[in-house]
């Protein structure tokens, strides 16, 4: 049985294809259209998924969509009724798009699908899964567990913003939900907005900024904004927020509570902004920990699965993992709405159609390398057309050359095999660097990524040696757990260094691997496994042979605001538009020094700041 899952029309459109319950392909539309968080119907991602399996759309048994438009419309109406007459302006703006498009999503989908397969029998083949069921299915079904408790948290789906479910074999039942407007994701986004970042993409920045501050506002948040119960359930005081009735996240009462207006996105970050980030992060962790502890007691299961946008908060995930309420934790790598496409397909297969589920040791995500790959001939064609100068080497030679360059302090674009599904680059489309360098974090941020210097980088480490370098006792293949760098590898701060505040601490060399050690001694670890990514594993092994260090900086292959590169052409453009020193694509090796400086082209203007 073949099921195509789709997410679209809000943000992060994606398609995923499963064949007899096995995940065959999955990709986000933004990678093809080069529009970050692209919300359009994912026709490129669908075409890719079908081509990966050698299928036509008419060969597919069902198409599953990741949420239910009517239910969302019901929420819209009831929310406006609840707050009326406030919110009329927002209502007036929302109504046309609903009456024109969103209410007719099924018809819209049918027309789109029919244009690809004119005889497509949409009435029987088109299925809809609730938003949080899609998230829960994306978390449970590909997990390595026979049974598990499932927690999903995000901004909002139809009504649910947080849900708990129990998965057992092929059964998955949602048993509790917290409904809109009470939302942990929207609370976090409110602070993202208030600290001057862009909602729906700046949340990572708030999380990265948090360790530079102190959680001095946490009690104020708990006293005024959120009524948090012992079991982790909560309600938000809507008198401080604007998202139900207006066009912003917070209102003037929120400003009064924290003593100032929202930070202007163009202005410099101050200690107060870092303290706000630390405070909302602390509150978020407290909510998640209370939820997971009560879920562990109620479910009795030793296993926890997580998904939903809040599950991308890897600092909170790390705390849940260390908290010990659950013995094992598995997080869907595409935890955001893109993963809903996969979840909808899996929910259709197991929950709706009742097909059996088989757990075969490891998880079913294949390292999340579910996107397109390019044969060597295609890579050479694209590079030649782009005017690149390259050498063709064996895989072993490529690995040795890249390891050598990295050990000498070069930054390298690494484009190998299938593209990752989800927001993280995991060694398929990555920029790599030497984590031992004290200047690499700043250099990569400013010269390659063109983003704020405080943004931390994550380490990839050989899975076999992860516990020698980090306080981690489980696998973290999807870079979704934060753990401390081993105490023995961290360096004590001097008194002078300790007296520094906030961003001044950025330049302190904190460990043997300073470029991936965040200000609080933590790191967002990716364990690299030979069975899912043998060439990246071999590269780390070669780097260790030269340096004694089995760790590399791994950041996504893109510049600020750009979707991660998809094709060799995208990669070459990024290579020539940044100060990357080397690029390894398949068996092709490119050195910046061998390219005419006149070919360098700054393309930053093409992407909006995130």
């Amino acid at each position, binding site marked *: 049985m073949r099921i195509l899952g789709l997410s679209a029309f809000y943000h992060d459109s994606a398609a995923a294809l499963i064949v007899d319950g096995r995940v065959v392909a999955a990709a986000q539309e933004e990678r093809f259209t080069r529009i970050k968080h692209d919300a359009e119907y994912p026709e490129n991602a669908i075409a890719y998924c079908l081509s990966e399996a050698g299928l036509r759309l008419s060969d597919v048994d069902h198409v599953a969509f990741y949420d239910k438009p009517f239910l969302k419309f019901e929420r819209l*109406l009831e929310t406006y009724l609840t707050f009326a007459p406030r919110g009329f302006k927002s209502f007036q703006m929302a109504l046309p798009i609903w009456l024109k498009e969103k*209410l007719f999503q099924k018809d819209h989908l049918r027309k789109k699908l029919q244009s690809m397969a004119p005889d497509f029998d949409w009435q029987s083949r088109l299925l809809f899964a609730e938003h949080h069921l899609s998230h829960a299915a994306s978390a449970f079904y590909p997990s390595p567990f026979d049974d598990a408790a499932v927690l999903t948290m995000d901004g909002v789906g139809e009504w649910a913003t947080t849900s708990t479910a129990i998965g057992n074999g092929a059964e998955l039942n949602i048993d509790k939900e917290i409904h809109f407007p009470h939302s942990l994701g929207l609370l976090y986004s409110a602070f993202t907005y208030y600290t001057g970042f862009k*909602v729906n993409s700046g949340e990572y920045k708030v999380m990265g900024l948090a360790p530079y501050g102190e959680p001095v506002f946490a009690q104020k948040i708990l006293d005024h904004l959120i009524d948090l119960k012992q079991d982790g359930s909560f309600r938000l005081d809507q008198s401080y927020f604007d*998202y139900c009735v207006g066009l912003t996240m917070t209102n003037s009462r929120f400003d009064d509570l924290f003593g100032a207006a929202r930070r202007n996105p163009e202005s410099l970050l101050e200690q107060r902004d870092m303290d706000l980030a630390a405070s909302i992060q602390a509150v978020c962790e407290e909510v998640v920990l209370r939820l997971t502890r009560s879920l562990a007691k109620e479910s009795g299961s030793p296993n926890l699965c997580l998904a939903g946008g809040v599950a991308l908060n890897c600092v909170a995930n790390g705390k849940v993992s260390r908290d010990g309420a659950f013995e094992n934790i598995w997080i869907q790598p595409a935890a955001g709405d893109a993963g809903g496409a996969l979840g909808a397909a899996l929910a259709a297969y197991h929950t709706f159609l009742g097909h059996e589920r088989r757990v075969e040791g490891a998880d079913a995500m294949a390292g999340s390398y579910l996107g397109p790959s390019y044969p060597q001939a295609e890579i050479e064609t694209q590079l030649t057309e782009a005017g690149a100068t390259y050498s063709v080497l064996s895989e072993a030679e490529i690995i040795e050359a890249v390891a050598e360059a990295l050990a000498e302090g070069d930054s390298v674009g690494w484009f190998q095999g299938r593209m990752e599904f989800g927001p993280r680059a995991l060694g398929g489309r990555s920029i790599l660097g030497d984590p031992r360098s004290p200047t690499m974090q700043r250099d990569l941020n400013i010269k390659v990524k063109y983003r704020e210097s405080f943004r931390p980088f994550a380490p990839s480490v050989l899975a076999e040696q992860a516990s020698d370098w980090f306080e981690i006792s489980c696998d973290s293949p999807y870079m979704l757990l934060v753990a401390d760098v081993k105490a023995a590898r961290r360096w004590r701060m001097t008194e002078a260094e300790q007296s520094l505040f906030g961003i001044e601490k950025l330049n302190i060399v904190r460990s043997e691997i300073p470029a991936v050690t965040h200000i609080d001694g933590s790191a967002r670890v990716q364990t690299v496994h030979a069975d899912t990514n043998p060439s990246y594993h071999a590269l780390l092994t070669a780097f260790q042979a030269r340096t004694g260090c089995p760790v590399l900086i791994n950041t996504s292959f893109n510049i600020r605001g750009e979707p991660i590169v998809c094709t060799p052409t995208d990669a070459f453009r990024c290579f020539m538009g940044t100060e990357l020193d080397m690029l390894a694509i398949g068996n092709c090796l490119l050195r910046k020094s061998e390219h005419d400086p006149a070919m360098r082209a700054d393309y930053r203007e093409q992407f909006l700041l995130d």
Partner: protein
Amino acid sequence: MLSFIIEFWAFLRARKKFWLLPIIVMMALFGGLLVLSQGSAVAPFIYTIF
């Protein structure tokens, strides 16, 4: 359109939300005018919750 109306009716029945019906009918009437008077519909929100 007929299939849409049938499905929406089934939705209201399943959700036991018949009280929404008068609001929806009024909305369809006045909203229709609003839609017809506009060129394109663009989501204006900072977070696409609606």
